[in-house]
């Protein structure tokens, strides 16, 4: 048994080695692009794997991006769309989840399944009719159209996750509120909602990423210059400047950085959300 500790340590070392190797595969490509965005064109081509040195550093790419495109506007659009949709998904989703988990009524199971249908069926397949509807409502090339679509897209999963969590809120608390004469609305907004904050954060992260990253609906519903989102703006900019490598690399880095910062801030929350969701 004297060999046990060393073999175990050896085994752990192998595990680390494998994980480090794959972590490099995940991170290096992103790093190479961000790194090269800060270099001169010559250095980008001559030594792509070298970090920017004082002699090779350059912000020319960023200058092109800022002067030749409306990246700030695109950011603002993405932000408005993402936050707007997030607000409605969380509010409407929590309200519906509360109704489904708190009250017994005839259609309860049916409505739960009705909403769950949307988790499996992608909203994209209804695009043909969604576009028609938005055209007749005069909402093409507005951010409202995107907010509406993303709210509908996010609701099924939000209701599903939130009702799981709301079932765990203690009945005693709610009944005490009822005895004190609180209305059902106050019980929901004042007592229950603060208690499920962690679940709301989880749903928020899950809802946010696909909305921020979506290309399909901005391309179809809001391709106008004033309503472009970052994802669509980057796509078009990259297509136009395909030969200007510093600019392309800088545009990519600009699109990566906000998500990267948010991810590093919230990765714990996100991962806890996924792991908690899967246990159910």
């Amino acid at each position: 048994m004297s060999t046990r500790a060393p073999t175990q340590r050896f085994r752990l070392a192998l595990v680390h080695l494998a994980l480090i190797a794959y972590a490099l595969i995940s991170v290096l490509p992103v790093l190479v692009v961000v790194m090269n965005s800060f270099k001169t064109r010559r250095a980008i081509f001559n030594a792509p794997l070298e970090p920017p040195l004082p002699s090779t550093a350059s912000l020319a790419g960023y200058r092109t991006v800022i002067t030749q495109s409306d990246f700030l506007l695109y950011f603002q659009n993405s932000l408005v769309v993402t936050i707007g949709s997030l607000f409605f998904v969380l509010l409407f989703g929590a309200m519906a989840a509360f109704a489904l988990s708190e009250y017994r009524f005839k259609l309860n199971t049916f409505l739960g399944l009705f909403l769950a249908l949307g988790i499996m069926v992608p909203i994209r397949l209804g695009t043909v009719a969604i576009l028609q509807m938005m055209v007749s409502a005069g909402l093409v090339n507005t951010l409202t159209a995107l907010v509406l679509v993303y709210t509908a897209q996010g609701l099924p999963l939000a209701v599903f996750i939130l009702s799981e969590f709301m079932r765990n809120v203690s009945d005693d608390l709610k009944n005490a509120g009822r005895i004190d004469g609180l209305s059902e609305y106050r019980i929901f907004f004042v007592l229950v909602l603060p208690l499920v904050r962690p679940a709301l954060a989880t749903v928020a992260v899950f809802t946010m990423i696909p909305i921020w990253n979506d290309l399909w609906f901005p391309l179809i519903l809001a391709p106008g210059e004033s309503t472009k989102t970052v994802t669509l703006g980057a796509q078009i900019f990259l297509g136009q400047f395909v030969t200007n490598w510093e600019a392309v690399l800088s545009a990519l880095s600009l699109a990566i950085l906000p998500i990267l910062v948010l991810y590093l801030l919230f990765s714990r929350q996100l991962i806890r959300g996924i792991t908690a969701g899967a246990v159910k």
Partner: protein
Amino acid sequence: MTDRPKARPRWHIAVFLAPALLVYTVIMLVPLMQTLLLALENVRDGERVFVGLDNFRMLFGDPRFSEGFWNALRNNVYFFVLHMLIQNPIGIALAALLSVPRLRGVAIYRTALFLPTILSFVIVGFLWKLLLSPLWGVAPNLLGAVGLKSLFAPWLGQEAYALTTVSLVSIWQFVGIPMMLIYAALITIPNEVIEAAECDGITGFKQFFKIKLPLILPTIGLVGVLTFVGNFNAFDLIYAMQGALAGPNFSTDILGTYLYRIFFGFQLQAGDRYMGAAVATAMFVIILLGVCFYLFVIQRRMRRYQM
């Protein structure tokens, strides 16, 4: 009902449910149904008429549509098979490594491994387009470092390799999802089960394959159906890397890009919303079949493993 006070009408339930149901029904379900119905109509002599299954007959049989459709479907199946054979096993392996007891730095590994999954398709698509570009020496240089420079080719531009390359990029991006779901399942296996196995001398690889894997089969089933739905609904990555024409020569065309071209038209062909609706309906049926297969065949068989 006679000796109980009559229930007050509970309007608040309706108030709580109304906004979500309204948005979901109006923006998602009704358009979905309309799309399915639109697939049964077409324009004849300038008028919109009901044509039954004619659109599908064209889609499956008329070479103007069917060649593209079957090509896209074939490519999509290949795309899905590669994800199942590469992405999910790698995800399982990474999850197994992450859940090794007494491992340090798990949080850092998780964050790094999940990073590509949160990036947008546009970023991922262009990032790899640049890295694989023969103009920029990154890929050939890296291959050169391990003495394999001769293997390099402009894969994205070659019909024979483009689809595989795009699939691998998609796998690189999404390996985080099976990894996380399976990791979550692995860490919830009760300690007693693992200890009992260790008492019987079952450890390491044997323990993983004989004890843990059967216990996480339901999660693997879920990962499978999520992969299926995601792959048959994919569009963005191909569009970002290869454009709406899904080149070279449609070799990377999948149902999502095909739908986009039929619906909006491209170059010489005009857009056709009726045929677009027919493609969307075909995709809907494929996804529905996959989900039903999971619900009624896989999940039912798995249930006996659940604890």
